[in-house]
């Protein structure tokens, strides 16, 4: 019997206080995610239970009990406090998926400061924009990523320290740099956890929009209530589970379900910190006897591409429950997983701003391959028209996904950007920016984004950011960036570029521009294809019409071109 029991019954009798009761939380009490994910589990008698099994490159393995996690998070918290960190200060985590990232996240929360995780593959410009916006006081990183920070540190007077967790003692530190070696530090047994409350800020995750700079999505400690319950009911996490969330904590899935959901439910979590290959992933599942696997469509399609033969080399019978997030999971992938693993990947839908799963397929509920499923109990979701934002109320009609605000893990603000935050709410609904329809049984069916944001491998890339970076390349006069269909990543970045006089499009220039964007922004934002063109389609007022380029890439009707220049 799955944890959720009957979905329909849960919907009828739902109240968020189910989670509050399970967590012994009463409104008005102190609530600190760091404590809930370590000290509380120890107090429940599970101090010696394995909380984290980490495997790095070359098969190096480290194991941590919940007591080890408690001590490690205390130690990091104390170190930060000794450096002068104060509640609500921003502390950035800029690391690969190493144990210090997981413990650092919880350690920051224990001090009352705000954790700001950033994807470690970000280039220096992407990093700078986000650190500047948050006015980050401390950044924690590895020596391999430190050079990117050093490149921009002179422009960041607000950044007081860069903590390097694996500094070679033989090498000198530079100004504002501090070494911290978790294994060598005396462990802190008693640490005064800052008394945070429901609305105390906890996490600042950055996400991209169509226009403007990336937005810092502010979450609060009360988000735990939704992250805990969705981990129990959707991911079906149980005490004896060996859980693997493949997401990087540089993105929201990696924190909501790779840290908070995993540790607050007290399961044993496995982390694999190495690059992707089908063989290494299957070996990891077999070796650690993974029971619950939460992954992403891009990874699932990459595994499909690697073929079925390789699966026969491994015993994957340990797998009990599979789920997916990041982008729509196509029906072929659901059917394939049922064929090769004996169980389907259940699609879950949510985003950085929602903080936890909003619409999902549930264990025990009928699965319609390709569907997003139904709203989580306690979540009111519908589709609305794009004019008055009224619910459509008609089966199969496509509209904007709309969610009634008020769930515990809803973002509280875009950092320093109230206007954009307010624009996300229309007629009493929160609009995630996606389109779907609802069938006659209440299942949601994803259609696409309602804007130009590119969803590549489950990560959102702003065309504006890529276009801005392209314009900094010495050869580029103008650029337009759109999504291009891709089997594995769903979408990849494609750039249309006009060149300045004296430059000619060539394969070498193409590669040079690709690498320029990759290093400046990130590999995700690097155009996978660049098309050199003589001109870009523009309106008579000079605005580039991405819509036309997008339609061409997707083989869609171009639509109204009455405003097109030279038409």
């Amino acid at each position, binding site marked *: 019997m799955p944890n959720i029991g009957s979905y329909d019954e849960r919907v009828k009798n739902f109240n968020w206080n189910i989670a509050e009761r399970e967590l012994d939380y009463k409104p008005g009490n102190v609530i600190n995610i760091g404590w809930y994910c370590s000290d509380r589990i120890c107090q429940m008698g599970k101090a010696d239970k394995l909380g984290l099994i980490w495997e790095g*490159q*070359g098969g190096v393995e480290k194991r941590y009990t919940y007591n080890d996690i408690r001590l490690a998070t205390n130690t990091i918290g104390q170190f930060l406090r000794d450096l002068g960190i104060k509640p609500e200060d921003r502390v950035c985590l800029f690391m*690969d998926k190493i144990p210090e990232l997981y413990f650092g996240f919880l350690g920051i929360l224990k001090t009352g400061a705000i954790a700001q995780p950033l994807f470690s*593959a970000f280039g220096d410009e992407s990093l700078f924009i986000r650190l500047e916006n948050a006015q980050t006081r401390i950044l924690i990183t590895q*020596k*391999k*990523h*430190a*050079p*990117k920070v050093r490149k921009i540190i002179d422009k960041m007077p607000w950044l007081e320290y860069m903590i390097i967790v694996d500094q070679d003692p033989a090498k000198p530190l530079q100004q504002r740099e501090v070494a911290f070696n978790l294994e060598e530090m005396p462990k802190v047994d008693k640490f005064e956890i800052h008394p945070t409350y429901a609305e105390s800020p906890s996490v600042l995750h950055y996400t991209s929009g169509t226009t403007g700079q990336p937005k810092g999505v502010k979450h609060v400690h009360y988000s735990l209530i939704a992250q805990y319950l969705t981990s129990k009911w959707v991911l079906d996490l149980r005490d004896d589970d060996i859980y693997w969330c493949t997401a990087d904590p540089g993105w929201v899935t990696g924190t909501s379900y790779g840290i908070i959901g995993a540790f607050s439910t007290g399961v044993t979590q496995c982390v694999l*910190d*190495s*690059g*992707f*290959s089908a*063989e*290494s992933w299957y070996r990891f599942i077999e070796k650690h006897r993974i029971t619950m696997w939460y992954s992403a469509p891009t990874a699932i399609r*990459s595994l499909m591409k*690697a073929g079925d033969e390789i699966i026969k080399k491994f015993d994957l019978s340990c797998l009990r429950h599979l789920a997916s997030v990041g982008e729509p999971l196509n029906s072929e992938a659901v059917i394939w997983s049922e064929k090769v693993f004996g169980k389907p990947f259940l699609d879950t839908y949510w985003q950085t701003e929602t903080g936890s799963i909003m619409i999902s397929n549930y264990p025990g509920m009928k699965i319609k391959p390709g569907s997003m499923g139904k709203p989580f109990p306690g979540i009111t979701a519908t589709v609305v028209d794009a004019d008055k934002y009224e619910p459509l109320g008609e089966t199969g009609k496509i509209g904007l996904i709309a969610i009634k605000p008020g769930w515990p893990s809803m973002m509280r603000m875009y950092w320093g950007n109230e206007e954009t935050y307010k624009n996300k709410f229309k007629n009493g609904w929160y609009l995630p920016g996606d389109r779907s329809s609802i069938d006659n049984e209440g299942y949601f069916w994803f259609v696409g984004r309602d804007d130009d944001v590119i969803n*590549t*491998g489950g990560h959102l890339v702003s065309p504006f950011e890529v276009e801005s970076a392209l314009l900094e390349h010495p050869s580029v006069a103008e650029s337009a960036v759109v999504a291009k269909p891709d089997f*594995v990543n769903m979408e990849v970045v494609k750039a249309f570029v006009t060149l300045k006089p004296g430059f000619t499009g060539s*394969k*070498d220039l*193409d*590669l040079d521009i*690709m*690498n320029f964007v*990759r290093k400046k922004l990130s*590999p*995700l934002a*690097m155009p*996978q294809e660049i098309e050199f063109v003589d001109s870009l389609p523009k309106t008579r007022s000079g605005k580039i019409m991405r819509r036309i380029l997008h339609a061409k890439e997707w083989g869609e009707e171009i639509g109204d071109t009455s405003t097109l220049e030279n038409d």
Partner: protein
Amino acid sequence: MEDMKEIIKTYIINEYVEDDSEVTYDTPLISGGIVDSFSMVSLKRFLENKYKISIPDDKATPEAFDSVNKICILVNEYLK
């Protein structure tokens, strides 16, 4: 062959390695997290430009790109 290995290794160090980590001809590139799946596209483009070859997408797998030695075997297949 040695020339090719050195050229590819130098390119990888210059383009994908931020610090002073050592890269040998056998260092795991993809499974070792030095080159991610998105960046593989630019590495493939470099090989195609440099050696004037075309590597089919289905041959450009993480396994085939996982070390300088493996990449050289792949490139040599298409040089013939």
